[in-house]
């Protein structure tokens, strides 16, 4: 086994670690604690956060990549170890090889037979045209009619395993947090549901394709789960690229005013006057050409897809900083008029120190709100961009690519609905949780809304 570190893997772990450090440093700050307690004091906030955390966990597990060592055949006299060209992740292992069970083409959820007729041989060896049996579904069944009973029995045993898992995960939390004033029960309930669903999925998928298979015969549920990493990474990394540009320029424009302000304003007006999708499309096409001209930069296909993905995050970040920049500029303009900044000036405090100690901490709430708000917008944008053909690489599983590949299938008879359902369902849950959570974060951190509530 040989670990593989893709650029996006490194970046996402770096991001998670720095976020954790950031919150660890702020843990004793009473104001921040109060705000976050407000977010988590609502049951909805707890549930939404638990769901987002589960998605992030899946994304992280799916970011631990490695290449399996191939077993050398006896005839080969060398001791050298060769590695599989396919890159796997810890998540692939945990799901029990769900992604390795390919069929020939479409098959419906829980189906035993393929979706399209083929020429096959019947029991007596004659050629007939019928639906061929699937390779990886219901192999253990003696007769097709046993299917429903079999699924029920397997579900019950899977759920029992799921409950055991819940007990293992939730009991320590309960022991630690039972005195807390926050509604942890809501989070535990969500965790329980997710764990049971996970246990059920993994155990049933050994015997059936829960969401069927797509045109290439790949398991749809597995693809939808793989889309999680793409969605979460795009949502966070693109914002990560945007933040430094927007914050630096916005704070400088608002603080120094004069020609700095003019230049920054000119930059963001110009950028925001270009139709966003055209700018993104043009930049992505440009990078595509660059990759095509330099094909030997990347060892395996996955690294090329990853480079394209990073570029996409970068492009989305660079093209979308104008809104945040405008907000931060306005806030900084306001703050730099305040008494304590004037006083700091009078005491001869340096510009960099004033910016760092007095201005930046007071725009952090805007950054935080934008970060959470943009996340869901970016997840949705990925699907649209992949449809237009300027999204993530087709070899990289993503909801947008699934939808793009499946959109003509609805017109078939009988309808093939499962690919679209899988992609839209997983995308919807993530975006909904993120939107609900961002509402709560905004309510808690936006001084205007807190002020309004204080009056009421």
């Amino acid at each position, binding site marked *: 086994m040989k670990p593989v570190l893709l650029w996006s893997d490194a970046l996402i772990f770096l991001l998670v670690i720095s976020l954790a450090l950031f919150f660890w440093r702020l843990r004793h700050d009473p104001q921040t604690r109060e705000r976050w307690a407000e977010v988590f004091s609502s049951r909805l906030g707890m549930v939404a956060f638990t769901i987002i955390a589960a998605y992030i966990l899946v994304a992280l597990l799916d970011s631990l990549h490695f290449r399996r060592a191939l077993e050398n055949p006896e005839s080969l006299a060398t001791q050298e170890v060769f590695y599989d060209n396919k890159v796997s992740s810890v998540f692939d292992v945990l799901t029990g090889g769900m992604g390795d069970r390919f069929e020939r083409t479409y098959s419906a959820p829980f189906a035993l037979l393929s979706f399209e007729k083929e020429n096959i041989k019947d029991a007596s060896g004659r050629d007939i045209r019928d639906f061929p049996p699937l390779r990886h579904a219901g192999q253990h069944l003696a007769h097709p009619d046993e299917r429903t009973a079999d699924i029920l029995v397997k579900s019950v045993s899977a759920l029992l395993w799921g409950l055991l898992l819940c007990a293992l995960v939730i009991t320590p939390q309960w022991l630690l947090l039972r005195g807390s004033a926050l509604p942890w029960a809501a989070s535990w309930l969500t965790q329980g549901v997710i764990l049971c669903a996970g246990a059920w999925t993994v155990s049933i998928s050994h015997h059936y394709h829960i969401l069927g298979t797509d045109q290439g015969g790949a398991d749809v549920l597995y693809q939808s789960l793989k889309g999680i990493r793409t969605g979460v990474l795009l949502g966070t990394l693109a914002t990560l690229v945007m933040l430094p540009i927007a914050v630096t320029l916005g704070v400088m424009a608002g603080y120094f005013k004069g020609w700095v302000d003019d230049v920054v304003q*000119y930059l963001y*007006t*110009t*950028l*925001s*006057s*270009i*139709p966003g*999708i*055209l*700018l993104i*499309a*043009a*930049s992505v*096409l*440009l990078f595509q*050409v*660059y990759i095509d*001209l330099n094909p030997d930069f990347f060892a395996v296909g996955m690294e090329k897809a990853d480079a394209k993905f990073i570029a996409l995050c970068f492009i989305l970040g660079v093209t979308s900083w104008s809104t945040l920049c405008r907000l931060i500029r306005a806030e900084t303009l306001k703050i730099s008029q305040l008494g304590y900044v004037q006083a700091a000036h009078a005491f001869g405090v340096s510009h960099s120190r004033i910016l760092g100690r007095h201005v930046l901490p007071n725009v952090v709430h805007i950054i935080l709100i934008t970060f959470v708000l943009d996340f*869901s917008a970016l997840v*949705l944008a990925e*699907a*649209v961009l992949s*449809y*237009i*053909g*300027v999204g993530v690489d087709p070899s990289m599983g993503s909801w947008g690519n699934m*939808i793009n590949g499946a*959109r003509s299938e*609805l*017109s078939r008879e009988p*309808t093939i609905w499962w690919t*679209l359902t899988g992609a*839209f369902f997983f*995308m*919807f849950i993530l*975006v*909904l949780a993120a*939107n*609900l959570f961002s*509402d709560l974060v905004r309510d808690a951190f936006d001084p205007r809304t807190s002020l*309004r509530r204080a*009056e*009421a």
Partner: protein
Amino acid sequence: MFAYIVRRLLYAIPILIGVNLLTFTLFFVVNSPDDMAASQLGDKYVTPEAIANWKQKNGYDKPLFLNSQAAGVGQVTDTIFFDKSVRLFAFDFGRSESGRDITTDVATRMWPSLAVALPTFLVGIGVNICVALMVVMFRGTRLDRGAVFVFVALMSISYLFYIIGGQFLVAKTWRLVPISGFHTEGQVWKFLVLPVLVGVVAGIGAGARWYRTLFLEEANQDYVRTARAKGCSELSILFRHILPNALIPILTGVVVLIPSLFMGSLLIESFFGIPGLGSYMLDAINSQDFAIVRSMVFIGSILYIVGLLLTDISYTWADPRVRLS
């Protein structure tokens, strides 16, 4: 006011130059005029003479940004960038790489775009405001909280789902209207109903939620309490007091979009096969037709700037206290 408008229009010039500079740089970082010529002439093995010929014919036989051989001002003006930009400012978009006249294309394709975008825009605003007003009437109750949750859920659904779902349900299952296509004669509305419906429904979540916030902000003001104390009915408070006062923030968000309606919607037009500017752009992106992309970026920027200007002018109409200077 007139002076103000003229000044704003003058400000637009450096912005448009910047926009052009950006699109040019983006494109020519990887694509030299030679590459363009080769890909347009179509052959894998084109002679250098043919390339030179094509460049001469299409005006790509000069340096990109700086002509070091020319004298004086010619260093800047005798370049591809200057030639192509000046033409854009005169609204002469030239020919696309496949030889079609872009100005005519834009002029004919503008109308189908508008036919879809304008009804979507107007009906959308009407529906969103009505829904929001209804929710505001029940503010602070469970109905209000439930409605906000529904709005957020509607917002969380991908736009693609609305389009695909609408086509599947209305056009395929119920067979009420054609799935896609467009006609200029006869029953045009048949082709417009579904795209407009999809556009409106897809916008309800975000739109109604936004209007609700605006109305609630007004509903907490003192004048509303005074009106209620005087004995105004809730309906008259909503329509006579809250709605007019919420106009300014509504105009800020809405007016800027009006000129952009000409550009149409990329997704709706490509899914429903409407020959508007949105699908024009998509085709240009897919075939990497730089002349079209550049012209559309230019038009889009102009429309955006006009939108900003219209927003300012509309303030004076909505709020007599505002003076433009």
